[in-house]
């Protein structure tokens, strides 16, 4: 039996005004896997990621064509609900961006907005989410202190916890470790491997090592095109396209 892909992307094109940022990108993203996206700066990785939860909708003067299906349903269909989509497909930003509120309130934001849980259940959900993001042990006694007083690495894990609290299916990460030191990076990478058990993860990274360490599949973007997409092992040991090899071995990019 073959697994149904979580995301099926066909012939995706994306324009910022007159500049085209994505050219005919087609890719299947499989459930419970980590898909890494690599490529030089400005090649459209973030743009691609933002297409998956429609965060590009907030940028004026953009145009998208092609099709993106999440579990078979077109997320750009006229009757598609963007808020529901974004609850299912969460995004971790490059720079940690907790709200200027307490740690608890940060994690509770999503559930409160959804209005699904309250009181005792909310507390449990917050605790579970913080545990899920491997942060609980560090903040259990300081839940009411401001989120911005945490270290950057903790802030990033708090952002992940905040996202887990809305119970998404997919987690998108845009260079989640680029603002973090090596130890914090290791923690987030460990966390990604744990999260893979329950979530589908797509991660943009500039670190070849990170892609090699954590991902199952790797896609190489270049000038808005998906040049090559395969098992991470294959990409890093015997890439079929020469440009991929050049990028991975550091000859350009």
């Amino acid at each position, binding site marked *: 039996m073959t697994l149904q892909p979580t995301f099926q992307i066909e012939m995706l094109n994306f324009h910022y005004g007159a500049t085209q940022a994505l050219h005919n990108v087609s890719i299947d993203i499989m459930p419970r896997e980590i898909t890494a996206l690599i490529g030089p700066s400005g090649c459209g990785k973030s743009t691609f990621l933002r297409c998956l*939860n429609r*965060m590009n909708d*907030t940028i*004026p003067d953009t145009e998208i064509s092609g099709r993106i299906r999440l579990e078979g349903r077109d997320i750009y269909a006229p009757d598609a609900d963007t*808020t*529901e*989509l*974004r*609850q299912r497909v*969460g*995004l971790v*930003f490059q*720079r940690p*961006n*907790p*709200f*200027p*509120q307490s740690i608890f309130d940060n994690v509770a*934001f*999503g559930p*409160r*907005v*959804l209005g699904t849980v309250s009181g005792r259940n909310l507390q449990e959900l917050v605790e579970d989410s913080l545990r899920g993001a491997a942060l609980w042990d560090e903040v259990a006694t300081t839940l009411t202190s*401001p989120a*911005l*007083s945490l270290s950057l690495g903790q802030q990033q894990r708090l*952002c992940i916890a*905040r*996202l887990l609290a*809305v119970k998404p299916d997919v987690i998108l990460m845009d260079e989640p470790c680029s603002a973090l030191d090596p130890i914090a990076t290791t923690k987030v990478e460990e966390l990604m491997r744990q999260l893979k058990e329950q979530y589908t993860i797509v991660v943009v990274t500039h670190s070849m090592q990170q892609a090699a360490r954590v991902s199952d599949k790797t896609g190489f973007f270049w000038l808005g095109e998906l040049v090559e997409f395969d098992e991470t092992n294959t990409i890093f040991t015997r890439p079929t396209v020469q440009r991929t090899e050049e990028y991975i071995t550091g000859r350009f990019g």
Partner: protein
Amino acid sequence: MNPEDGTRVMTTTTRKSTHRKPLEILLEALVRVAGYSAVVFVALIFIFLMREALPTFNEISISELFSRRWYPIEDYFGTLPLLTGSLVITLGAALIAVPFGLMTAVYISEIAPRWLREFLKPLVEVLGGIPSVVLGFLGILVLAPLVREILHIPTGLTAFTGAVLLAGMAIPTIVSVAEDALDTVPKSYRDAALALGATRWQTIWRITVPAARSGVLTATMLGIGRAIGETMTVMMVTGNAPQIASGLSAIFMPLRTMTATIAAEMGEVANGSVHYHALFYIGLALFLISLTVNLTASAVLFRARRRSERLLS
């Protein structure tokens, strides 16, 4: 620390300061004079007010000062109706201006399309610059008759009319300051909320506005401050009857404020008379009230700012 290092640092700084001396010293002196003069002016105003107002306490008993009848020609100097008049009008204006102003600010900064925002922002600034006499004039000609006809009351020159006009004056201040504050909220907060599946409204009310709260508070205070100190508009449209506000219906009756009393009577009063001192006493009271409001506001703001600085450091 090496003592030699210390001396070397000292010599370089002295050399530097001798180098730029003449202009530096002149500029510093100018800035210093400007800074001190602000304090000196406030102190002088206060001293002058005190000098002219203090005799009141010998000439009029405290209980008389707080009695309910202001009728200086017959030597009634009860300032209570004026105090309540100011209070009713300021509160009324704040009740109208704060919600309305904040909602307008939110609309301009968060909801309006870009071209409309570029149009509305300068428009608000222009509205803020309309002289209060002009607003008072509009009040007499347009708003007062309207109020009278709609509510079927004998005169349209009421506390309500004054409050509405004062709100109209405070709103541009509130909108422009609050809008600036909302504008400085980082986009990353909004993006984070939207990416979690919050709607635009939830993002605005739960994240953006609270993140801008110290600026929003400043906006409110500045707006109310403008309303408290306003004289002309109020004098023109509130009917100027020094009556005590009693009950809700008082809102639709004429009344008179402290500022309007001073403006209306100061021109005719004999220098050094009891009445003259009483007017200065009212001025002193106004001064103290607005000082208190401002000090409270800046204390609150200072605390809020220190808290956010602690967080961001």
